């Protein structure tokens, strides 16, 4: 009897998906091409402006000078160990490590706090203004306090990035948790799921896409705060390099630093979006 039932051929509902995905490859390739062309045009205009000499190189160095700085600061054997003792790559590693730790702690705190905020209205009522308050503060403002409390080593830098990173995750998680479809929760309860099961196996996975959007914001904010975090005894990082170069009017190094931060930030964001797609392939389909 069941074999006969298996042959019922009602139409699959998921057909919309391959249909809408397949033709995207050509426009995607075109998008990449258009973007590359736009970047090249901008670089060309920039180089022309620099060559025209409206401004001295200390105000506007050209892309070629910035490229030269990339090669110089990446060269450990250039007599100053890259730039002021560390190569560009070492600096990038140091900064990414700070951002990594700061974001990781921030995300952990944000998810846990957001989960509790979403599940217990009282906690939300109490903590939400505090989280919003913290969010409004520029990281540079609370760095002073962190330095007084924790000194000038790694702790205040990681803590600063953590404080910058956790509010968007907490807010995104709390919103996602309150917005979880009650229907899934009821279905799980009727299957014998305990409260812990419901949280771990329904509420968290159902919230995952929105939580990751919060993570995306958080990592972006943490990364953009790295220059602030490295204003005190952070000369070994990429932000430290920018600050140092500014002191000596090495404009091309400043611009190089901005490009390195911007491009790696873009790559990190792309990676997070990839993780989001992999973790929640049902997004927009259910």
């Amino acid at each position, binding site marked *: *009897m*069941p*074999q*006969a*039932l*298996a*042959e*019922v051929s*009602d*139409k*699959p*509902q*998921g057909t919309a*998906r391959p249909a809408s995905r397949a033709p995207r490859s050509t426009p995607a390739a075109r998008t990449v091409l258009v973007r590359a062309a736009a970047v090249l045009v901008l670089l060309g205009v920039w180089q022309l402006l620099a060559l025209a000499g409206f401004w001295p190189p200390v105000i506007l160095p050209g892309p070629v000078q910035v490229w030269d700085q990339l090669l110089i600061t990446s060269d450990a054997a250039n007599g100053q160990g890259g730039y002021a003792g560390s190569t560009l790559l070492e600096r990038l590693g140091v900064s990414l490590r700070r951002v990594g730790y700061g974001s990781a702690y921030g995300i952990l705190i944000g998810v846990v706090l957001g989960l509790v905020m979403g599940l217990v209205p009282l906690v939300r009522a109490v903590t939400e203004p505090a989280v919003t308050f913290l969010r409004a503060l520029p990281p540079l403002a609370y760095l002073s306090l962190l330095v007084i409390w924790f000194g000038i080593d790694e702790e205040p830098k990681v803590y600063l990035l953590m404080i910058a990173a956790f509010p968007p995750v907490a807010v995104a998680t709390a919103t996602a948790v309150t917005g979880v479809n009650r*229907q*899934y929760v*009821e*279905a*799980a*309860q*009727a*299957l*014998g*799921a*305990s409260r812990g*099961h419901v949280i771990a*196996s*329904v509420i968290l*996975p*159902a919230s*995952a896409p929105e939580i990751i959007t919060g993570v995306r914001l958080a990592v972006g904010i943490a990364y953009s705060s790295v220059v602030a975090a490295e204003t005190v005894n952070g000369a070994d990082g990429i932000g430290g390099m920018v600050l140092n170069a500014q002191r000596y009017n090495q404009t091309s190094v400043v611009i190089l630093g901005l490009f390195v931060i911007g491009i790696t930030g873009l790559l990190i964001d792309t990676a997070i979006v990839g993780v989001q797609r992999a973790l*929640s*392939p*049902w997004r927009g*389909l*259910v």
Partner: protein
Amino acid sequence: MASDATALADLVDVEHGYRTKAGAVPALGPIDLRVDPGEFLVVVGPSGSGKSTLLRLIAGFERPTAGDVLRLGGTPVPGRDVGVVFQQPRLFPWQTVAGNIGAALRWADVPKPDRSRRTAELLAAVGLAELGPRRTWEISGGQQQRVAIARALAARPKLLLMDEPFAALDALTRERLQEDVRSLTDDAGQGVVFVTHSVDEAVFLASRIIVLTDRPGRIALDVPITLPRKGISADELRGSPEYAAFRGEIAAAVRATVS
């Protein structure tokens, strides 16, 4: 009569209402109803007669505003002694088809080594043995509802509650699923409460039908359905004169509730 522990569900003087800005709106009752093991009770009634509310009270999702609801002698709480199939399949999209059933088995404390075998058995029982690794949105609506039924049966609940489970499906799929449900719930001892607004579906499935009146829903008719089911095909059953007689009686009762 005092409630009997062997009743799967026992409702005494049950009323339910909803609070709105305009005041309390009675939705259901007063109702007395007892569901015994082996019964396939179908609840028929017009929209707004409180059919779904009745089911949600037995499931433990809602508490009655008056009266007592007992399930297996205790206050109902959603849990594994009851299986619920909703109008929407409510499959977890973050799990595969097999993962949905695996979760139900895990929550029912089925030991890990047994779960994959039980998952395969349950999927085979609803005719979807091949679909375990698929994503829930990649399969058809009818297949999704089959998975939902398999998932609801995972913990071998004594009572299965089904809230218009086939309302969103096309007529052919619907008939196949009705036949499916009949064969899956033939187990003696298990009870089913099935809510529908389709008289045909009710007569085909039921061992007993209650018809609810318009809001607030009360029991207008309570009849046992005695159709010969052994050794007769679904089509023969649907074509039999006895079936037509029951169909006429129930349809008349439903029409009377709305006039």
